[in-house]
């Protein structure tokens, strides 16, 4: 008599074979999907690092500069007002002299004139020198060693971005200048080293990509994060506690609940235009100010914080509330003494993730003009505070990516590395906190 499920357990029926094949296919799809994802990630990370790491290194030219008294302080009385009258143009001959002296000293043959030789240096060099002299008027008349930034083409040449072929139509640099660069590199006058100013420095104008840094926009981001933390955390946690623990269950709270979830999905640029309309046009807060940026990002972060806070409040077992109420605690005491401390790690994690999200947000910042150009370095830039114009890290990256000079392009990638380091650090912190304080019931 034929059996219903095949003749023997030892041989598979067609049905079982088909079922097993389907399962194997499904697993293969899954593995393929993960593999594609991983491949994308690897491509992304390698691209970012190969293009961005160069920004952390910069080419410097070391020169002994004779701070000639007759050029810098004609009266010889070290009066700061007189010294300040000498503009950066007044410093150009001094730099030219220093370069010529160096070239002669090394015995390098070059057809270049002094002006072209000094052209290897960044346009920033004169300003650097002037700042030094104003800060140290006593050094006038002495010979001081300086490390000047090389101009971006020289930097690009050392990094392989600029070649002899690519400069044919480039009026910023000539083949003779590159010959001189080669000679100076051989003599260790020009060298490529780690550049802290890229991380800590201010932005620079279009003509001086070599001097641009992320520092000031980092401060702008920091200020905004303070605003977000100071507003979104208390408001979000208070709203969640009320909704989760106190609010009655009715149609009104249902509507609020649905809308909070909806807000979390609203495109960030909508918050940007809202901020422009309300905070700037209606409330007349200054444009480009970290305060306004922070307010806009607060609106954006609130739903994230509320949703994660409510989830962690919900995860606290009701038996704890019963226990507190059972010994005669009021509802508020039960929440603040027992429920909230237990939910705190979850709230903290949600807040950090919300902040990380806000930190990487660009679109709303563009709408409220958080792309201020601030060329002053710390500590001046710190003092400017919440109401003066500033930029933010992602906005700065966007700005650099827009500029024409390929040297800025490299800095945009470098900026992305810095931003990613921040984001990864914050997310790792969130994961560690969650792991460390996770409680099993």
């Amino acid at each position, binding site marked *: 008599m034929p059996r219903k499920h095949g003749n023997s357990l030892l041989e598979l029926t067609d049905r079982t074979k088909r079922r097993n094949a389907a399962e194997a296919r499904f697993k293969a799809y899954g593995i393929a999907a993960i593999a594609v994802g991983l491949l994308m990630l690897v491509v992304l990370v390698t691209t970012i690092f190969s293009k961005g790491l160069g920004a952390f290194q910069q080419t410097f030219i070391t020169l002994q500069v004779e701070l000639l008294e007759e050029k810098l302080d004609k009266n010889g009385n070290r009066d700061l007002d007189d010294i300040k009258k000498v503009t950066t143009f007044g410093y150009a001959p001094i730099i030219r002299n220093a370069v010529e002296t160096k070239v002669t000293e090394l015995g390098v043959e070059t057809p270049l004139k002094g002006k072209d030789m000094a052209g290897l240096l960044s346009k920033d060099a004169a300003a650097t020198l002037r700042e030094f002299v104003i800060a140290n008027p006593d050094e006038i008349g002495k010979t001081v060693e300086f490390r000047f930034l090389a101009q971006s083409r020289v930097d690009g040449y050392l990094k392989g971005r600029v070649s002899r072929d690519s400069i044919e139509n480039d009026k910023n640099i000539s083949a003779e200048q590159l010959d001189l660069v080669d000679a100076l590199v051989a003599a260790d006058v020009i060298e490529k080293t780690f550049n802290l100013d890229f991380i800590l420095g201010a932005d620079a104008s279009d003509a001086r990509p070599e001097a641009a840094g992320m520092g000031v926009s980092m401060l702008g981001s920091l200020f905004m994060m303070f605003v977000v933390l100071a507003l979104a955390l208390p408001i979000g946690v208070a709203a969640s506690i009320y909704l989760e623990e106190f609010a009655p269950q009715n149609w009104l709270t249902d509507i609020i609940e649905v809308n909070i979830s909806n807000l979390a999905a609203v495109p960030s640029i909508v918050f940007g235009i809202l901020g422009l309309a309300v905070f700037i046009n209606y409330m007349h807060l200054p444009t480009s100010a970290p305060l306004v940026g922070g307010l806009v990002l607060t609106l954006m972060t609130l739903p994230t914080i509320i949703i994660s806070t409510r989830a962690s409040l919900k995860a606290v077992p009701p038996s704890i509330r019963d*226990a507190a109420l059972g010994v005669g605690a009021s509802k508020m005491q039960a929440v603040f003494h027992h429920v909230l401390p*237990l939910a705190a790690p979850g709230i903290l994690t949600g807040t950090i993730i919300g902040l990380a999200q806000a930190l990487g947000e660009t679109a709303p910042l563009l709408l409220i003009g958080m792309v201020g150009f601030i060329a002053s370095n710390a500590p001046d830039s710190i003092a400017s505070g919440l109401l003066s114009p500033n930029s933010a890290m992602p906005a700065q990256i966007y700005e650099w990516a827009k500029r024409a000079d390929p040297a800025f392009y490299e800095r945009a990638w470098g900026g992305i590395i810095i931003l990613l380091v921040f984001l990864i650090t914050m997310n790792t912190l969130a994961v560690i906190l969650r792991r460390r304080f996770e409680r099993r019931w």
Partner: protein
Amino acid sequence: MNDMTAMDSTVETQRTKIAANSVNVYYGDSHAIKDVNVEIEDKTVTAFIGPSGCGKSTFLRCLNRMNDTIDICRVTGDILLEGEDIYDKRVDPVQLRAQVGMVFQKPNPFPKSIYDNVAYGPRIHGLAKNKAELDEIVEKSLRRGAIWDEVKDRLHSPGTGLSGGQQQRLCIARAVATEPEVLLMDEPCSALDPIATAQVEELIDELRENYSVVIVTHSMQQAARVSQKTAFFHLGNLVEFGPTGQIFTNPEDPRTESYITGRIG
């Protein structure tokens, strides 16, 4: 413990502590408790027995207004504690719960130290003026909870680190720390092993000296062992209420008899 059975426990009539008059409880549209009248005596253990869903826990939670935390729950009728209606508008449930303590089905110590677990109630009610008084209350409560000897050397280690039975006795100590008059216990032994159960039952018998204890239990043997009065609930009705010995040996209602002999439930 062994000398205490339903048959030989003498029943002396005590003062009435809680009187419930025609209490009805509704969860939304469902009628969970139907016209229950019961008098709970002081210094007596009263057991509520009955099949699952019969309303015994619901009724217990009415006695300290824990049902207030459920939005859809509605209570009618009156429950008098020492002659005062606990559902009166002027009564603050927080104040009531300090006088009517509760122990829950699952041991639920706060994830804090043993000391803080017990001290929490006295602290929020301002029962101790200083640290020394608080220490005294904590020790007295832990002794009443019959757990002092086991934990006196580690008062500051977490309460959640104790065994299940110890945790439940800690919860009882926490409940008595606020000096309640009535102690409600909602299946206090259902999550415990037989040895821990025996310890807790012994403790309940001791607590009778100072408190009026109301215990909800699934185990008829437990009701017979620890209680002097038993109330049998069925489908939201209080079917029978009387001295434990009588309920278990000579029930008046056929439903009670079916339940205790194992034919329903």
